[in-house]
């Protein structure tokens, strides 16, 4: 009984913090999304309750489909490459060699850069006219690609930049996970005559599963929210071809001189719902694993 009380005592600051810092913004957003705000009623009050009208409007908007598909593509492709590249790099650095600690630390540098800078640098590299990537393509005899200005490529471009930005996070967490697998496990496997690949696939990877799951889940949460990278590189364009739910929500609320708070909040809530579903799935999977 005393232990239980102590347990809660240690949690009190966190719970208070969660209520104080998260509940209000969340509440505000739900409230915004179910009212018919104009700029006038936003300031002076009296916006009528409109129920799900904002949501209906959002779902009926042709942009919604594009944004949803783009969000799914952007998130899944980003996650896949961030994770595989991050894991490969973690495995590589886990072997330990001269300078490995320093090089591993340098891998984190992309993270230190303000997003406005890293996203702008990518926009620079991918510029149709004066970008390095097109210049390199020319050297190997390929034609230029309109990375940021063609509707067919804009989503690819922002995804590439986002993968680059996400690799350090995956590397750090997966590397820590690898360090936690006891050395003996690998040695035993090697004694059994397993090749490097077999050891990885049958021993390391399964042992890494919990860490992988949390990495992917957090990665998913962060990627769904990504807005700066896309906004800085393409503003969601050209003509909506790289719009995701996050950039659309921003565009509705802030990308225009006449803010449309209601629909913007509705899109934001749809985004939160998607993430909640992913979280529930994760917990479900985890429980099944515990039972198995």
């Amino acid at each position, binding site marked *: 009984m005393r*232990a*239980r009380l*102590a*347990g*809660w*005592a*240690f*949690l009190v*600051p*966190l719970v208070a*913090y969660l209520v104080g*810092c*998260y509940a209000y*913004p*969340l509440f*505000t957003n739900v409230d915004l999304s179910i009212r018919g705000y104009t700029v006038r009623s936003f300031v002076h009050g009296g916006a009528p309750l409109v129920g799900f009208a904002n949501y209906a409007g959002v779902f009926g908007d042709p942009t919604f489909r594009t944004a949803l598909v783009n969000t799914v593509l952007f998130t899944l492709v980003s996650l896949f490459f961030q994770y595989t590249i991050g894991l490969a790099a973690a495995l*590589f650095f886990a*072997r330990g060699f001269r*300078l*490995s600690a320093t*090089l591993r*630390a*340098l*891998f984190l*540098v*992309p993270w*230190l850069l*303000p997003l*406005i*800078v890293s996203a*702008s*640098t990518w926009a*620079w*590299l991918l510029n149709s*006219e*004066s970008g390095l990537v097109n*210049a390199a393509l020319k050297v190997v005899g390929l034609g230029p690609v309109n990375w940021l200005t063609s509707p067919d490529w804009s989503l690819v471009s922002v995804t590439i930049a986002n993968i680059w930005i996400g690799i350090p996070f995956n590397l*750090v*967490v997966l590397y*820590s*996970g690898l*360090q*936690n697998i006891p050395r003996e496990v690998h040695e035993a496997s090697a004694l059994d005559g397993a090749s490097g690949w077999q050891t990885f696939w049958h021993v390391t990877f399964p042992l890494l599963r*919990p*860490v992988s*799951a*949390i990495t992917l889940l957090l990665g998913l*949460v962060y990627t769904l*929210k990504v807005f*700066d990278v896309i906004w800085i590189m393409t503003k969601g364009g050209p003509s909506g071809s790289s719009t995701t739910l996050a950039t659309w929500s*921003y565009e509705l609320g802030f990308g225009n001189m006449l803010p449309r708070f209601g629909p913007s*909040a509705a899109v*934001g809530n749809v*985004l*939160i719902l998607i*993430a*909640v579903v992913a*979280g529930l799935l*994760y917990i479900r999977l*985890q429980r099944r694993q515990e039972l198995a």
Partner: protein
Amino acid sequence: MRTAVGVLLTALMLFPVYWMINVSLTPLSDMRKAPSLIPVHPTTEGYEQVLREQMPYLGTSLLVALGTVVLTLALAAPAAYSLAKLRPAGRRALGFVLLVAQMIPGIIMALGFYGVYVKLGVTNTVWGLVLADSTIAVPFAVLILTSFMASVPDEVLQAATIDGAGPWRSFVSVVLPASRNGVVTAALFSFLWAWSDFLFAATLDSGGRLQPLTLGIYRYIGNNNQEWNSIMATAVVASVPATVLIVVAQRYVAAGVTSGAVKD
């Protein structure tokens, strides 16, 4: 051999960073010419301006980032200890709430904070910004620290209890030192997030006397004009102290995340 491959991979990864340095040294008139791998007419204009103007911002950024680390750990470590070792009822629900908290888009958080801060008159203060920045890191830190602390063997704790240690002393003198790596990881992440935050800074602190570096950069992005070599030079100058810090911190981040964090 491995070192050579490692250097090559790192170089590949850091190429955009190199490009940023390249741009920081390029004079305005050359910026949209055909790209060249090294700055042909290097100019240190950007750096001169940054060293002249940006030092106070650098100090504020350090203050904000360190403040965020302290606040994050102060909130997250006791909670993680409770979740991992004292195992109160409802911890699973709390874990889920933490996940949901991470999912609220930053802009929604920022607007919520702005409304409250304006009301309380605490916009444009460093402490307000620290509190807001901590919301990026706290849920993550709790999840990560819980998994680290869960791996501290129960026997060690029982031994401490037999010696007459209460929960607080067990926490401070047994669990916390044993999960030092986790603490460093959580600290590293919260430092980095606070360091590179722009959204909260722009919303909550853009009129203040003490502004972080991400806003300092914005001085070069005027309404109609952008001084790219100064912007990039600021970014280069900004990454130096942070790079030193992570290289040092990396030496401590040896062991890692053990198990799924929402787990008991």
